[in-house]
Every structure is written in structure tokens, then in C-alpha cells.
């Protein structure tokens, strides 16, 4: 049972500000994912929560207790490191119980916890082996065991899957998800992999340049990105941004892409408030673009879609789907379709855009409108 609250946390390395006023609050049992590009400060934030690095300003509160001045070992946290950080000279069993031994827990209790973890992670046959004799996946398992055995208030994960191959990564991701489902412990997880973030998190904090860009549920992060940065960072391929301006006549709101005076997209259904001649970016996810009208009619709510004329330029086949690059009045748009559909390159065609799912961004502030 643990809540985590971070208030206005700041940190500097020499002159560089790495954390510029972080505010976060998660409830007991939440799975918070810190997502962002490398160098955004997410690992530093995690290390400050753990107490491995000091903050310059602000508060970290675990279960209504301020922990800023506490040693890492006093914060009742467990940490799973990117490199697993197993103690090379100790075998698996010694690795797992090391933390318990430091805390002067009785032998019987230690054995009990050890057995519980060994059964849970199915690592009985590894107990007497040294870390060097383990495969990547096994090391990962042992590292988790070392964290789980202590039964801490909060689990902290620092890109724990990034050293595994693709297949194993998906397997371990599911195991972590299962662990969280079974234990309901509060977890904070750092990654730069958006798929990991989406699949694991109950809350995601997207970080950029030492600040939190958006702190929300995975669903909102994906469908209602707060800023161009978030929209661009999440999703693969990332969201299309069409640069243009708004024209408001009487009751009609139209969007004109740059370099085009005639054909516009009708945005009447958009709930947000826009003004005449606003410079905006229209954000469309590649999967919200359809090739056939029937398809658009069937899928979009209230038949709220727009027709746009484009020129297909490039075609990338990636197995179960294909990514096609279109030219839309000089701007690039990427669409994602099932690979069974045949598209003729260099032949003008019409696409259908689901207008329920588009996002509008202010060109200047780069924020969502």
C-alpha cells in the first residue's frame, strides 16, 4: 500500500537543469510509466525517487512521508536496473537474499521469502549459479526476484527490458504485467519504448527536456495528446501534421492546407473553439486514413469523415500491413493499411479521413487546441 507524490522537483547537474519542476501524484497500485526520449530526465527522476541522486528542490512523498533526506535503503523501495546489476561474485540465491540479510531478518523468514520468490519466478534450478552463467532472460528474472523478495512499498524499474531480444522482451513485458496484476504494488517504470509504456502503464508521464509534457492515462495520451511533442512521440508511424489555416464563414469552419486555396476540409464537427485565420496543424494518425469510402462509412461515427485528394509516392511493405507515403499539396502524409490492398503509386487518388479522431494544434504554442 503506497502512494507517491512528487512536488515541484528540481535537479541540476552543474549548470544544466535536468528536472525542471516535476509534479506527479499516483495512487496505491498505480503503474506509472515515465516515457520520453533519451536525455529527457526520466532516469534521473527515477534515481531521485530511489534516493540514488539528490534533488535540489521540491519534495518526494511516499505514503505521506517526505523521503528526500532518507537513504535509498530506508525508503522501502526496490529497484530493477537496466543492466540487472546482479552481484557478480555471488550466486543467484545470495543475490536474492542479500538485501534481506542487510536488514537483519531472521533466517527462517529469509528462507520463506526466498522459497516464495523461487516458486513464483520458477528459478529453482538456477539458485546455485553465478550471474555469468545465466542467459539474459534468466538474469532479468533474478533481478526481479531480488526486488520482489523484499516486498517493498514501491517498485522502480529502469528500462529493465531494453537489453533483451525482441521476442523475450514481449514475454517479460507480459510477466511484469502479470506481476502487477497479482501483487497490485505501486510501480514506477522508465522506458523509451512507447509500446511498453502503453501496454504496462495505468498512467503515463511523457517527459521532454526535464519537464512533464503530459501525465494521463494511456488512452488519453494516444487519442488526446496535449502537445505536438506527445502526438509525435507516441504512435508508429507517428501522427501526420498538416500545416494550414482556419477559415470561418458564417456557420462553416474550413481548414485550408498551405499552398491550396480551393479545396478545404470541413471542420464543423470539431468541438474546440477556433478563430478565423488561425494558423494550425491538423493531426491525423496514419490508421485514421481510409482508402475506400465504404470503409470510412462503416467505421467513422456519424459518417464524419473528409475526402482529400492525394498523390501516392512511396510504398513500404512491413508484413501484416503497409505504410504508404502520400503527397498532399506538397505535404507528406503517411497512411497505414492492411497489406492485402493494392495501391498504385504515382496515380492520383482520394483518401478518407476520420474527423472524429483528428487533433488540432496551435502552430505557435505547439499545444492542443
Amino acid at each position, binding site marked *: 500500500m503506497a502512494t507517491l507524490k512528487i512536488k515541484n522537483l528540481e535537479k541540476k547537474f552543474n549548470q544544466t537543469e535536468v528536472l525542471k519542476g516535476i509534479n506527479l501524484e499516483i495512487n496505491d497500485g498505480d503503474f506509472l510509466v515515465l516515457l520520453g526520449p533519451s536525455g529527457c530526465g526520466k532516469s534521473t527522476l527515477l*534515481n531521485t525517487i*530511489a534516493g*540514488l541522486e539528490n534533488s535540489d528542490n521540491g519534495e518526494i512523498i511516499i505514503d505521506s512521508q517526505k523521503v528526500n533526506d532518507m*537513504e*535509498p*535503503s530506508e525508503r522501502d*523501495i*526496490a*529497484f530493477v*536496473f*537496466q*543492466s*540487472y*546489476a*546482479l*552481484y*557478480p*561474485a*555471488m550466486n543467484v540465491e545470495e543475490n536474492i537474499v*542479500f*538485501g534481506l540479510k*542487510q*536488514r537483519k531478518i531472521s533466517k527462517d523468514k529469509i528462507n520463506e521469502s526466498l522459497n516464495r520468490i523461487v516458486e513464483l519466478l520458477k528459478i529453482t534450478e538456477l539458485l546455485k549459479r553465478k550471474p555469468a552463467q545465466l542467459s539474459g532472460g534468466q538474469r532479468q528474472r533474478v533481478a526481479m526476484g*531480488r526486488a520482489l523478495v523484499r516486498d517493498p512499498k514501491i517498485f522502480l524499474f529502469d528500462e529493465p527490458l531494453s537489453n533483451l531480444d525482441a521476442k523475450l522482451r514481449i514475454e517479460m513485458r507480459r510477466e511484469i504485467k502479470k506481476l502487477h496484476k497479482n501483487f497490485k504494488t505501486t510501480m514506477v517504470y522508465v522506458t523509451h519504448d512507447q509500446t511498453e509504456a502503453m501496454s504496462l502503464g495505468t498512467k503515463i508521464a511523457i517527459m521532454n527536456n526535464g519537464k512533464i509534457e503530459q501525465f494521463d492515462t494511456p488512452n488519453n495520451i494516444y487519442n488526446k495528446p496535449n502537445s505536438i511533442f506527445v502526438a509525435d512521440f507516441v504512435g508508429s508511424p507517428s501522427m501526420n501534421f498538416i500545416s494550414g489555416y482556419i477559415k470561418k464563414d458564417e456557420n462553416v469552419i474550413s481548414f485550408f492546407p498551405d499552398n491550396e486555396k480551393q479545396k478545404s476540409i470541413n471542420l464543423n464537427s470539431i468541438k474546440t473553439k477556433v478563430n478565423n485565420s488561425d494558423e494550425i496543424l491538423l493531426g491525423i494518425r496514419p490508421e485514421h486514413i481510409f482508402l475506400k469510402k465504404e470503409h470510412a462509412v462503416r467505421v467513422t461515427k456519424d459518417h464524419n469523415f473528409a475526402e482529400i485528394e492525394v498523390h501516392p509516392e512511396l510504398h513500404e511493405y512491413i508484413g501484416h500491413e503497409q505504410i504508404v507515403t502520400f503527397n498532399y499539396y506538397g505535404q507528406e502524409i503517411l497512411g497505414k493499411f492492411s497489406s492485402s490492398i493494392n495501391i498504385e503509386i504515382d496515380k492520383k487518388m482520394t483518401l478518407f479521413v476520420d474527423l472524429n479522431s483528428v487533433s488540432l494544434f496551435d502552430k505557435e504554442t505547439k499545444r492542443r487546441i
Partner: protein
Amino acid sequence: MLNKINFSRIFLFLILGLFVFYYITPLYVMIVTSLKSMNEIREGNLFSLPSTINFDAWKIAWGGRGEGTSDTFLKPYFFNSLKITIPALIISTLLGAINGYALTKWKFKGANLIFLLFLFGTFIPYQAILLPMARTLGFLGISNSPIGLILVHSVYGLGFTTLFFRNYYVSISDEIVNAAKVDGAGFFKIFFTILLPISLPILVVTIIFQFTQIWNDFLFGVTFSFGEHAPIQVALNNMVLTSASVKYYNVDMAAAIMAALPTLVIYILAGNYFIKGLTAGSVKG
């Protein structure tokens, strides 16, 4: 193609053979001379094998002739050297290891500057510290004693041992230390239970290096000690230089080999580790 390879191989081995010969000849001369009697040395050839193997010279070099006070022999000085080398070796290695650990895994403000000073210390020539060290030892009242030489060698070696261990530990992941901190281990607990057990390669390098340095030292020995407290290299020098009338080449050679033997043994026992350890720290450092 085959012929070409064979030719270059033969050439290579010829050159190597030449170098082997070049390096081994002095040792050969030392050994055969030490086993000859003085008569045989005077009459015979420098390179000829001894007619009979005769260990008298070795016995004299080690235990003397029993001629009273003017007689110099190595036995007491050999133990002097052991008394100096072993403690100085342990102190400088252990402190160097802790320094290297603190400088890499418990970074503090100015850690880099301090490391730079240690590094700078390795460039200080022996001669430069003779006078200040003599004053210091005098002030502490430990000049001309094994303790004084232990201090000198420990301090002088610290720069090197710190450098070795620092470069080794810098290549070991910080995350291991962080994990131990989260697990609740302290500074020394982490050092002794987690880092020291994986430091064998660099320990061997440091031990060989320091042992050789301290055992072979002449300048500190001759400056800071005399008489019965002198280390073996000083005694060897006295022995070879003070034999007034007759030069006993066989005894000199036996004594020289004896003085060099411990380092040779260490190299043979740990040489393999030495090569491995030298490169181990440099891979990522």
C-alpha cells in the same frame, strides 16, 4: 605462397632466437659463474660450464664465511626486505583499492581533482622526494627503521595503486553499487562483499607491480636506512663493492641471483594474470 610463408616464418624465428640468446646470456653467465670455484673462474672461459657443480658461493652469499663483523652476507637483509615489502605491499594495495572504489563509486565534489593529484603523484621522480621525506621521517622519529621504509613505499606506491584500481572500477557498472545501496549495504560492506571479490585481475597486477617496485628499490633503501636495517638491494651493493682485496665473482653472482629471485618467482606464478589484468581495466576505461 607456401614457400613465402615458410621463409618469413624462418626469418621470424631466427630473429626471435637471436633476442632470446641476447637476453638469456647474462643470466646464463651469472648462473654458471655462481656455480664455479674462484680458481676455475680465473683460469677458464666466461661461458664454459662448471667442471663440478659447487654451491659454496651460494652458501657464502647467504650465510657468510663466519669471519666476524666485516663479513657481509644477505640472509639478515633478505628478511629486512621481506619485513618492509610485505606490509608496504598490503597497505598500498588496500588503500589504493579503497581510493579507486571511492573515486569511482562514491563520487564527491572534487573527486576528479583528487584523482588528478594521485595521477600527478605517479610522475614524481624518486629523487624529488628524498629530502622532504628525510625530514618527515626524522620528525616522526622513524628514520633508519623498517617502519620508516614501509611508510615511504606505501605513500610513494599509493599513486600507482590508486590509478590501477580506479581504472579497473570505472569499467564496472555503477548500477551494481546502486543496487547494493538500495539493498541497504554501506561503504565498506559494498567494497568487501561485492567489489573486492571481482577484483582479482587488478589485485594481481598491483601486487606484482608493487612487489617489484619495493623489493627492487635501492635509492630509498640506501637513503633512509643503513647498517643492520638496510634492505637486500643495499646489502648486495655493499657486498659487491666493499670486498677490498679479492673479487669473489662467484659469490657476487650468487648474491645477485638471490636478490632477484623473489620477483622472478612472483612473475612466474602470476604472470598469466598480469597480462590479463593489464588489459582488463583498459577495455572500457
